[in-house]
């Protein structure tokens, strides 16, 4: 079972008010893989990611999480979500709580851990992202980069099978982008399964194990970073990456 993909998407389609956003998208994410999804805005990247977590419901197609179709009505969505972490562009830390409460709330409510256990796990993960000295702080007192690192720790606390990153650095300045990307790089090297929608080409090039180029709701190109960034001759991809004149 070593080769069974954690996430498998088959022929996914989704449209908003008649506009097709996703059109027959298929892909696989294997354990330990870091999949980067790049492409122009409006290409369906974020929608795809949100479908994986059922924040959007697709019109047709299948999403298999460890072989189970999560789109069927009999599946416990909340259980699936607790196994698939999500990190948002706008951080979305709970504003009515401090850092440690942000990281323990779902552990206590969803995984039914005791408060002490949840605190311990939260501290371990906050240390991994370098935010252990801020556990009493409120989100409003923190910089964007710090908030995003805490959001990553919050997702890690659930011991997820995979984490979905929805443009995690798009709201950050270059310095903060570096600190968040460093955390993500560490996670990738530790073998965490990640799906990253990003505009950070350096991350896709150097950290990702596979890159998908999405345009107009379809997977236009797919392959290793070397293939996407150096060998591929797709004119749309080349113009997106700024190679063509």
């Amino acid at each position, binding site marked *: 079972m070593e080769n069974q993909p954690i996430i498998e998407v088959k022929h996914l389609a989704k449209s908003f008010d008649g506009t097709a956003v996703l059109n027959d998208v298929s892909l696989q994410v294997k354990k330990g893989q870091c999949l980067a999804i790049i492409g122009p805005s409006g290409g369906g990247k974020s929608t795809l990611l949100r479908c994986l977590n059922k924040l959007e419901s697709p019109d047709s197609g299948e999403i298999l999480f460890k072989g189970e179709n999560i789109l069927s009505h009999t599946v416990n969505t*909340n*259980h699936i*979500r607790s196994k698939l972490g999500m990190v*948002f562009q706008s951080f*979305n830390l709970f*504003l*009515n709580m401090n850092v440690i409460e942000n990281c323990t*709330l*779902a552990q206590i409510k969803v995984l039914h851990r005791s408060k002490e256990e949840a605190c311990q796990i939260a501290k371990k993960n906050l240390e991994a992202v370098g935010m252990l000295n801020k556990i009493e702080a409120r989100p409003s007192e923190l910089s964007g980069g710090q908030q995003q690192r805490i959001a990553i720790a919050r997702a890690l606390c*659930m011991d997820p099978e995979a984490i979905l990153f929805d443009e995690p650095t798009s709201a950050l300045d270059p310095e903060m982008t570096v600190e968040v990307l460093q955390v993500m790089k560490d996670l990738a090297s530790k073998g965490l399964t990640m799906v990253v929608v990003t505009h950070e080409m350096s991350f896709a090039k150097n950290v990702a194990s596979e890159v998908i180029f999405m345009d107009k709701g379809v997977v236009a190109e797919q392959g290793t970073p070397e293939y996407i960034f150096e060998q591929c001759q797709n004119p749309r991809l080349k113009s997106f990456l700024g190679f063509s004149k």
Partner: protein
Amino acid sequence: MNLFEQVGYLLSNYWLWFLEGLAATIILSVVGTIGGLMIGIFLALGSRIKIGKHDKWYNKTWKGFIRGFCYFYSTVIRGTPMMVQAMIFKYSCQGAGLNFNNVLTGIPVFDGWLIAGLVVITLNTAAYMGEIVKSGLNGISKGQIEAARSLGMTRNQSMFSVALPQAIKNSIPTIGSEWIVNIKDSSVLNVIGVTELYFMSNQAANKGYMFIASYTIIALIYLMLTLCTNGILHIAKIKLDGKKVSFPLFHYQKKAS
């Protein structure tokens, strides 16, 4: 007697009446506001119930019923005067054989009519609080709920742990002004015989035909009450923001020399 002598006369002879009225008004406004907020939260949640595409027909039915009821309740209560609601309540209860004269007899202030008044003001405030909480919830960014749901929390868990606390905190100023409205509007409950401040001052005024003096006294009392309420809200707001309490009124800025 001039106005000041009349005020002095009324206060020295009927101070207990004013005190009883004051007590009733405070009880009415505090219980009405807090009770109304509690019910209002459920009204707000009820009117936001989602009817899913795949719900069974009986789930669709009761969800639709709750939503319809919340909408109907808020429309009717906010669209009619509290004085009229109080009268309808009083006479319906009498028609059903419940006379508030016979409830809790012999206790000063806290009599049957106060109970009736509490019911009316609470049910009335609930409709307004429902709208306040609803708009508070609308102001919470969608990402907050999505983050909670993405961690596997249920719709109710995300609502009660994440969205509702933020919505109520953001609504504190509006909830506070609703409290101030209640302090003043509880006076209309005199029509069903609630012995609140206006009712008692009316009685005192009639004793010595000192109308202006009597109403001036309660006008000042109402003003003091609302000023105190403002102070309490000011402190509450600062405490909720996690800052140190200070009173801008009692501070003066040192001029830069």
